[in-house]
């Protein structure tokens, strides 16, 4: 079976954080300890919603050294494909679920002399575990957290109360903006940037840093994409000798799995590269949405990331 190893868990707490965000606590059904992880790691949560199985990645926000439970915070997306709505509306305390071992695509670079965190909205979650890791190891860090308003700035209160000198919060509704250029100017050598939030924010931070001469290797980002709905299309899986219809609200990866074909994956959000698949033949247009392949690979028509990318056209044959 593909993906990281699985853990059977029970939901032991569900806590509303604000109008949109709810926190879930998972403990092992066998009572054993959870594996430790590193700050920035995520878990893939399996959601059995009728006939549909969804596997969505969520950043772990608990203390990486705390083996009693994992916690995640989920923002309700009323226009999404239903994963967050399922967690918000259908999961109850006591339910048994399956989650994956932690996978970290957004780790701290421990060679850094200082860690500069930029969070936008729900993008705060990976930093919650990273901050706990930093506090344990005595690392130097600073958080700049932008949210729409105080009601939607999850954990801003606890963070500012706990770390008043490290945490800076900005509210869009009050026209507060991170003074990015002056903030990046003069940061000591060895400072690393981490950004997690909406795509616009990630691009803004990365581009500003590049313009100021920051090396690429010192700027880290994480953005999980949810697969977007699109026109249904047909795919032929050459190795398994199967023809599969990909539905409007289904990802190519999900359709492959539904057909009983074991395809590799890890993050299911276009970031990790595990599901990279060779295209044998096609007649149509690719809708590439991942952050993994290079531009020339997207243009080549030879590769696709089935977790988030789609296809429109007559024929698509994959080496799977």
């Amino acid at each position, binding site marked *: 079976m593909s993906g990281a190893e699985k853990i059977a868990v029970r939901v032991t707490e569900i806590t509303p954080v604000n109008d949109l965000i709810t926190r879930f606590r998972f403990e092992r059904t066998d009572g054993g300890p959870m594996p430790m992880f590193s700050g920035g790691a995520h878990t893939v949560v399996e959601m059995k919603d009728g006939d549909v199985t969804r596997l969505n990645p969520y950043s772990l926000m608990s203390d990486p050294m705390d083996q009693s439970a994992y916690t995640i915070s989920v923002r309700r997306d009323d226009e999404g494909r239903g994963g967050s709505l399922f967690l918000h509306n259908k999961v109850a305390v006591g339910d048994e679920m399956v989650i994956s071992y932690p996978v970290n695509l957004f780790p701290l670079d421990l*060679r*850094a*002399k200082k860690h500069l965190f930029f969070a936008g909205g729900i993008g705060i979650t990976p930093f919650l575990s990273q901050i706990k890791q930093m506090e344990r190891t005595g690392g130097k860090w600073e958080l700049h957290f932008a949210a729409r308003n105080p009601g939607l700035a999850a954990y801003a209160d606890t963070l500012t109360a706990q770390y008043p000198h490290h945490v800076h919060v900005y509210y869009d509704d009050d026209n507060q903006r991170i003074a990015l250029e002056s903030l*990046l*100017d*003069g*940061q*000591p*050598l*060895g*400072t690393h940037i981490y950004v997690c939030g909406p795509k616009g924010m990630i691009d803004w931070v990365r581009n500003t840093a*590049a*313009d*100021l*001469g*920051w*090396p*690429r*290797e*010192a700027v880290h980002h994480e953005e999980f994409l949810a697969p977007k709905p699109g026109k249904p299309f047909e795919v032929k899986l050459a190795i398994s000798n199967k023809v599969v219809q990909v539905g409007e609200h289904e990802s190519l990866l999900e359709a492959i799995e539904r057909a009983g074909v074991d395809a590799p994956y890890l993050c299911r959000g276009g970031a990790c590269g595990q599901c990279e698949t060779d295209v044998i033949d096609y007649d149509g247009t690719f809708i590439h949405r991942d952050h993994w392949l290079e531009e020339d690979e997207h243009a080549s028509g030879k590769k696709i990331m089935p977790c988030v990318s789609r296809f429109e056209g007559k024929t698509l044959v994959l080496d799977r």
Partner: protein
Amino acid sequence: MSKFEFPPSIKSRPVWGTLEPRPGKHHLMIAEAEGAEAILEIATPDLMAKTHLIFIAKGTDYGPKLEALNPMQFRETPTYGSAVQRIERVLSDAAMGLQLYLTGTEGMMGQVMQAAVTAGIPHTAIQTEHRGSVARRMQCVHCKGITEDVEMDPFQCSHCGLNLFVRDHYSRRIAAYQGVCIDAEDPGNVPAPKGIYE
């Protein structure tokens, strides 16, 4: 002619590049001997106005030409050893966005890279261009002593006296190539030394 085409080798061997101006508010250039020529090739008044240039002369006379580029700060030193303190001081005061340009021998570039990485610059973000001598900084894997400016292969370790074979195996941590005893099995059976690339 200060450029040399190194033959392709194992993955461990550093690959040096060609300097190019990059965006950034502050620039630190360190040139050793013929490396001055690489600086002269990329220098523009704009770039030099933001540049601290350290020139390690090693007996060459490029100094006045470099100073005439009007760098923001210019310092000439006779050897790498006499430049180390200044380099470390500049790095410890530097901010992110600093662009680092190194040009000269492999030994100098390797040692400054090591200092720069310790100071917090990712090694892949440092620009380098080899110029001048192809002599190597070698570490004896047996006694761990460093012999500078090794031109012949095999050579005698300047510390323990073993006859060492010049490997392409490089240590970024030590900023030196590895030298391994060539006559361990059959003491005294040492091939005649020749130039490393001959």
